[in-house]
């Protein structure tokens, strides 16, 4: 039997490079940072462990959302509402802490519930009413932010420690353990658990199957709508988690925060090699994607380069990463 002749046509070096493309990209960005970093008192500012820890802290929110977004994109859908849901849950959590003086644990559970609920709505409307998720979550993007402003007042709610403020335990999200920011640890734990779900549970298989071919998945006994709804709920809950961390880190919950977060999360997922068509992709890729974006922001920031330039570079990076994946899949 003659195998598909195009398969063996590849250059083994190119193949290896493409296979570890994500890690390679991360390494290249790191080396660029190393070379172009400003040096103060003989020490390289970029490779400084504290700076590296700061990068991790900065990407934690995007990274956590990107994990949820990976699930959604893997089933062939999209969630544009994450930025607004982050704002809603951050503001909601702040209000629960400061106005109702609830315990940290209770606030976290309630916050996650709000995120889960918005995800549930996204999922149910997408699957049952059969409106494309692009439209449904675009509506939720507007709705969640409007709701946050109306219900919780249009202003930021400060979250301050001390008497009458939030309990100290809430600020665990602003701390560091062994020099590593807690949000980054949360991100890693979330990514690892999600990775295990995707790889080692029937549900994970179903996620890939639904994204790869929903008709074949249904005929193989997969409950396609159910899988999609769960995936939207996961994305909502993880976005809420990011929102709670956001409130702790910024000492406030504002209904105006989180603008553009959906694009950062989608960029991280896409740079990480997940196909927007669904069915192909990994969580490690998404975390690497978020990490690369964070490093680039950091390098540019250290060199005092205009934030508009950052946007240019981010755009170029997305196209380059996806272009490389195209070549890889065609080969």
């Amino acid at each position: 039997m003659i195998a598909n002749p195009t398969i063996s046509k590849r250059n083994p070096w190119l193949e290896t490079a493409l296979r570890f493309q994500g890690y390679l990209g991360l390494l290249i960005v790191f080396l660029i940072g190393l070379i172009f970093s400003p040096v103060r008192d003989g020490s390289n500012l970029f490779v400084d462990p504290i700076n590296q820890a700061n990068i991790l802290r900065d990407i934690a929110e995007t990274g956590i959302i990107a994990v949820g977004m990976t699930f959604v994109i893997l089933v062939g859908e999209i969630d544009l509402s994450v930025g607004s849901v982050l704002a809603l849950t951050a503001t909601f959590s702040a209000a629960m802490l400061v106005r109702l003086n609830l315990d940290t644990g209770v606030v976290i559970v309630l916050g996650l519930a709000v995120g889960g609920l918005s995800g549930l709505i996204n999922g149910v409307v997408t699957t049952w009413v059969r409106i494309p998720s692009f439209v449904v979550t675009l509506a939720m993007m507007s709705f969640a932010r409007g709701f946050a402003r109306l219900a919780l007042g249009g202003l930021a709610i400060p979250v301050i420690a001390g008497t009458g403020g939030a309990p100290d335990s809430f600020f665990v999200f602003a701390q560091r353990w062994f020099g590593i920011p807690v949000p980054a640890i949360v991100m890693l734990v979330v990514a690892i658990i999600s990775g295990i779900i995707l790889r080692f549970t029937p549900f994970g298989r179903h996620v890939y199957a639904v994204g790869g071919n929903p008709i074949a998945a249904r005929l193989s006994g997969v409950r396609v709508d159910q899988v999609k709804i769960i995936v939207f709920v996961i994305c909502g809950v993880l976005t809420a988690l990011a929102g709670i961390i956001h409130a702790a880190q910024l000492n406030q919950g504002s209904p105006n925060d989180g603008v553009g977060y959906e694009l950062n999360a989608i960029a991280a997922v896409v740079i990480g090699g997940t196909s927007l068509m669904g069915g192909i992709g990994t969580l490690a890729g998404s975390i690497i994607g978020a990490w690369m974006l964070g490093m680039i922001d950091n390098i540019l920031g250290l060199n005092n380069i205009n934030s508009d330039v950052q946007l240019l570079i981010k755009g170029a990076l997305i196209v380059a990463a996806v272009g490389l994946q195209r070549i890889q899949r065609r080969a």
Partner: protein
Amino acid sequence: MQTTYPVAPTLMQPPSKIPLLEMQGITKRFPGVTALNSVCFTAFAGEVHALMGENGAGKSTLMKILTGVYSTDEGSIFLAKQPFMPSNPRSAQRSGLAIIHQELNQVPELSVTENFFLGRELKNSFGLMDHKKMRFETIQWLAELGLHLEPERLLKHLRVAERQLLEIAKALSLNAKVLIMDEPTTALSGEEVSQLFTVIDRLRVSNIAIIYISHRMDEIFTISDRITVLRDGHYIGTDTATNFSRNRLIQMMVGRELSDLYPSSQRNLGQTILRVKQLCVQKSQGKQALLNLEFSVAAGEIVGLAGLLGAGRTETLEAIYGVPNKKTVAGKIEIAGKLESMKSPHHAIKAGIGYVTEDRKGQSLILARSVSENTSLAALKRFTKGLFLNLKLEQQENLVVIQKLRVKTPSLETPVSALSGGNQQKVVLAKYLLNSPRLLLLDEPTQGIDVGAKAEIYAIINELAQAGTAVLLASSDMPELLALCDRILVMCEGRITGQLSRQEATSARILEFATQFKPQYQETL
């Protein structure tokens, strides 16, 4: 045993003596494989030349060289005595080569005229599109083929056959001298096939060389003047079609005698596995897709579902498997004497049913995922301990079933899209075999599959039935139905119009039942 197509009388004029196309010593190597090894092929003006071979024999590579997709490593091509070496598809097209693909490259939302002139629109003196002229020319070219289509109709409203003929007309308008047809009839009904053949006969008269690729033997013998056979990249031979017998052709294609394409079998029927009572399915706008079906299938029995395109064969299988919306289905389905409500495929699988769909790429496989993931998708429950999958056990059992069905794949981790059609179909079968189903629903299980793989799949179906599986087989391949089935149910317009035992069944009797249209029903269509 042969299907007869009502075809216009073929003009048996001898093909002219000057070869229009000559390919000599064509060799194409890919790293690791020689896809073509010194292959020769000639085509005369005004002949239909069938190119035969199993999947992977090199037919499509040869055609890709001819149309400029690949370049050849050795050998030469002459077109009308001139050396011809197309560097890309466009230059091949300009030299008069046209290919009609299985998947048509047309825009469904545009009209007949717009598609006809896509990319080469006629302009008037203002530089705007000259709709009038384009419309007129489209009508003329279509009339040349004896085809009358409204030029304003959107392409999506045309039948596949009409779209195909439009594509042929377009090729002619581009001054095509050699027309390649790659499996043109897979999506056509018997009547549409004969319409296509009428058009081919016209092309023959106007001295166009047609290279015809198809797996359907009956068609090959009906339409072609000469046949060339390739096997494993080698040229096996060329001869006049009338000098071939079915057996000789198969033998040349597979390199061995295939006397037992169909397994002979002694099976013992067991208890009734499937019983369908008054099954009705509603289509949109209150029309009936299925009307009061009553039948049963016993353990170890292979029951065939015959009928023309649109008779309701696929709908019947789908209704049993719980595919359509529950609200549109009425009637009773019993599995092994137990009434089951088939709310969804999920429930059907639980009840012990497997369903191999007609469209394996679109409905049965997750093409981007691996052979292993596809194989175990419907049986993940078996490999789940607590929350997690037992990957090792999954791997082991997948390997067993993959080896049992002799799926040719480099590894379990290979994407299923990289496999040949026959092997993909075996993966679909493997998926349901993992669940050891009591009832297997098969819809055109050997469509677009080469002869060797066909024989293997027949053997698998037969083995399953011998082991006590009930099989319901829908097929438009008459010889397949006649050879495999213990009983054949014939459908027409959503009803069962006849039942034939193995002894009674002939293609003529099947066709007779398959065309028992209800007169008043036809008007509402």
